[in-house]
C-alpha cells in the first residue's frame, strides 16, 4: 500500500509538474528517497514492443518483453558507458590525440547492447569499422579501447590496430574493408557448425555495405550449407553521405537475403533488439540455417570524425531522433515509469560511468606509445624470431609472433 502510494506520488510529480516546479520535484524526490528502500522497486516489468516486419516467416519475435531490474540497470549502465566513451573519443579526436579514422557509435547503443543480451559469450560476433561499442560489449575495457584509439601500448591491440581493428575473445573486429567482414562471419559460422558446440555467429554490416556483391555470395553459401549465421544490417539511414534512397533500389534490407528469412527490428529499442535476436539465435541453433535482421537505428555523429554529418541530413532530423527515439532515454523512461529504478539511482550510475571514462581517458593520454621494437612483431605466428626490413637495408627490426 505504502509502496503504491509512493510510486503514484513520484509518477505524478515527475510528470508535467517537473517543468513548472523544479524545486518541488527534488523536494519530493528527497522525501521519497528517504523512505525508499530496495523493496520499493519492482523486480521486473513487462513492456509492449513493436511488432517486427517479417519476410518468409510465419511467426516472429514476441510483442512483449520482460525486463528485470538487474537487466535494466545493466543495460542502462552499458549503454551509458558506450555513449560517454564515444563522446570522450570525439573530444580526444578534436584535441588531435586520436588520429586517422574514428567512426562513432553514439545513437546506436541499443543495437550492440541488445544483441549481446540475447547471445552467450561463447557465441561469435564480427562487424565493420563502427566497432567501439562491440569491442566493449564483447569484453574489452574502456581503458583498452581508448588507449588503442590514442595509439598507446596499453591499447587492446597494443596500439597497432587503431579504431577499426580491435579484437577480443570471440570478437573478430573491427574490419576496415566495407563488406569483407560478411564472408568472414559466414566462415566463423561454418566453424561453429563444424565444431558442433551449438555456437552461432552474428555478422554485422551497414546499409551502405548491404549493396556489396560479396554479401550476396555469402547469403547463397550460408543458405546452401545452412550455416548458423545471423546476418545483421545496422541501417542507420546513411552510408557515409549517401542516404539509403540514393544507394539502394530496395531499401527493405531485411528482404535482401531473398530466400533467407528476415526480420525488421526497431534498433532504438533495446528490448526489441534483444527479443528479435533471441528469436534469430533460436532459429540458427535449431539448424534452420541463416536468418537476416535489419536493425533500424541512427547515428548522431557523421560517418566519421571528418564528417560533420549535416551536409546530407538536417540538424532538425538529428534533433528529432535525439528527443523522440534516444535509446538510453527510452530505457530510462521505461525504468522510471515502472519503478525499476529511480532518478537518483540512475544519476549515481551516470556519475560512476563518467568517473570510469575519465580515468580511462587519463590512462589513454598518459600511457606511452608502443616501443619501436614492436614495429616488427606479429608478422607470423609461432615462428622462430627473424628480421624484418625497415625503410632502408640498414634498418632492421626483430620479429616475434
Amino acid at each position, binding site marked *: 500500500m505504502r509502496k503504491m502510494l509512493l510510486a503514484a506520488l513520484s509518477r505524478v510529480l515527475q510528470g508535467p509538474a517537473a517543468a513548472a516546479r523544479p524545486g518541488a520535484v527534488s523536494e519530493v524526490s528527497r522525501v521519497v528517497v528517504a523512505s525508499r528502500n530496495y523493496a520499493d522497486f519492482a523486480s521486473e516489468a513487462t513492456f509492449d514492443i513493436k511488432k517486427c516486419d517479417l519476410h518468409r516467416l510465419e511467426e516472429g519475435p514476441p510483442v512483449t518483453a520482460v525486463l528485470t531490474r538487474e537487466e535494466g540497470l545493466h543495460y542502462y549502465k552499458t549503454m551509458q558507458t558506450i555513449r560517454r566513451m564515444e563522446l570522450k573519443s570525439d573530444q580526444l579526436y578534436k584535441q588531435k590525440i586520436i588520429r586517422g579514422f574514428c567512426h562513432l557509435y553514439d545513437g546506436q547503443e541499443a543495437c550492440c547492447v541488445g544483441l549481446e543480451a540475447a547471445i552467450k559469450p561463447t557465441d*561469435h560476433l*564480427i562487424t565493420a569499422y563502427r566497432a567501439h561499442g562491440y569491442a566493449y560489449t564483447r569484453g574489452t575495457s574502456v581503458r583498452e579501447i581508448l588507449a588503442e584509439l590514442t595509439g598507446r601500448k596499453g591499447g587492446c*591491440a*597494443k596500439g*597497432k*590496430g587503431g579504431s577499426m*581493428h580491435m*579484437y*577480443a575473445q570471440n570478437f*573478430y*573486429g*573491427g*574490419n*576496415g*574493408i566495407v563488406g*569483407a567482414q*560478411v*564472408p*568472414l*562471419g*559466414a*566462415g*566463423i*559460422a*561454418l*566453424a*561453429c557448425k*563444424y*565444431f558442433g558446440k551449438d555456437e552461432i*555467429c552474428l555478422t554485422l554490416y551497414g546499409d551502405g555495405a548491404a549493396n556489396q*556483391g*560479396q554479401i550476396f*555470395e*555469402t547469403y*547463397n*553459401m550460408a543458405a*546452401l*550449407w545452412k550455416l548458423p549465421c545471423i546476418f545483421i544490417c545496422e541501417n542507420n539511414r546513411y552510408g557515409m553521405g549517401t542516404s539509403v534512397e540514393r544507394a539502394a533500389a530496395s531499401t527493405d534490407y531485411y528482404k535482401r537475403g531473398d530466400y533467407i528469412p528476415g526480420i525488421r527490428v526497431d534498433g532504438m529499442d533495446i528490448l526489441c533488439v534483444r527479443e528479435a535476436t533471441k528469436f534469430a539465435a533460436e532459429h540458427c541453433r535449431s539448424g534452420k540455417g541463416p536468418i537476416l535482421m535489419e536493425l533500424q537505428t541512427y547515428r548522431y555523429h557523421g560517418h566519421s570524425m571528418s564528417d560533420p554529418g549535416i551536409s546530407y541530413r538536417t540538424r532538425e532530423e538529428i534533433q528529432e531522433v535525439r528527443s523522440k527515439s534516444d535509446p538510453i532515454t527510452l530505457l530510462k523512461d521505461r525504468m522510471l515509469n515502472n519503478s525499476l529504478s529511480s532518478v537518483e539511482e540512475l544519476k549515481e550510475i551516470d556519475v560512476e560511468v563518467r568517473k570510469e571514462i575519465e580515468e580511462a581517458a587519463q590512462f589513454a593520454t598518459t600511457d606511452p606509445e608502443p616501443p619501436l621494437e*614492436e614495429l616488427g*612483431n*606479429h*608478422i*607470423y*605466428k*609461432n*615462428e622462430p624470431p*627473424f628480421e*624484418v626490413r625497415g625503410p632502408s*637495408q640498414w634498418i632492421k627490426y626483430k620479429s616475434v*609472433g
Partner: protein
Amino acid sequence: MGPIGRGRGKMAAAAGALRRLVRCRPQQGLGRLLQLRSGIHGSAPAAVQVNVRDALNQALDEELERDERVFLLGEEVAQYDGAYKISRGLWKKYGDKRIIDTPISEMGFTGIAVGAAMAGLRPICEFMTFNFSMQAIDQVINSASKTLYMSAGMVPVPVVFRGPNGASAGVGAQHSQCFAAWYGHCPGLKVVSPWSSEDAKGLLKASVRDDNPVVMLENELMYGVPFEMSEAAQSKDFLVPIGKAKIERQGTHVTLVSHSRSVGHCLEAAAVLVKEGVECEVINLRTIRPMDVESIEASVVKTNHLITVEGGWPQFGVGAEICARIMEGPAFNYLDAPAVRLTGADVPMPYAKILEENCLPQVKDIIFAVKKILNI
C-alpha cells in the same frame, strides 16, 4: 589402401610390392631391375616415381587424416575430384564436411575460408587457377595476411590458398598470369612455389601445418610430370621447410635461381652447358616469401655470376627482388658481371603456339644468357 593407392599408379604400387620382396635379397636381379627402372635422376633403392598431382593428393590425404580441423573447399574439389584431379578420391573418403564444393563465388568462399581459420579451423582454399584469386585478393591480403599484425598477435589465420599459377598451354591472356610477385609483395603471407613432387608434397604439408596464411603457387603443366620420391619423402611426416631454397645442382661458373616450372628448364640448360665445360649451380627457390637470400648469396660468392629465371613479368618481379637484395648484401662484391633476369615477355599472354612459346624463357634463352654473362 583405397583410392589414394590407385591414384599412385599401378606401376608404383607394383614397385612398392616388389620393393618389399627385394629388400631381403642381395642387390642383384630384381633389385637391379628396379634400380634401372627408377628413372631420370639416378636412384636410391627404395625410391618411387610419383607425379606432382599424386604427390599433392597424398599430402592432402595425409593432412586431412592427421588433423580433423583441416578441410578443403573450392570449385569442383569434391564430386568432380578436382578440376585438375588434385583432390581425386578425397570426397569419397572424407565426405561433405571435409571436402566442400563451392559455387562460383571466389570473394565469398575465400572470405569464408579466412573466417573459418580465424575461428580455429585449418582450411585449404583452392583457386581453380590463381587468375581467379584476383577477385578474392582483398580477402587474402586485407583479411588474411594483415590480421595477426593488426590484432597484435591475438588472431592467427592458419589458412592455405593453393592452385595452379602462371602459364599453362594455350589458355590465353586471362588465364596465364603469374602471381608470385603480387603475393610475394605482402608481409604477413608466406608464399611457396614447388617444382618437383617432393617440393609439392613437402611444401603442402608444411603449409597446412603452418599457423600462418600460406599461398601455394602450383603449376598446371607440372601436375603430370613424374619425379623420383625418396623413401624419406614418402613418409607421412615428410615436410619441406618453408623459407629454405634447395640446390638442385651444384656448379661453379654461374648461379641459376628459379622457381616452379622454370627450375626444370634451368636443369635442362645445365645439362647442355656441361658438355661445353660450363658448370651451372641451379637453385630451386621453393619459397618466394620469406625468400632464402642467404642461399643465393652463398652461391654467388662461389660462382660470381647470377641469372634469375621465372615465368612472371619482368617489372617488379621475383628476379627484380633478387637482384636488389644481392646488391644490398655481401655477394655484390663477388659479381663479375651485372645480374641478369630471364622472365616472361612483357605482354599479356598470346594464344598462338609460336607466340606463347616465345613469351616464356626457354632452355635456349637460358643457355644464351649463361654464355653472354660468361662472355663465351
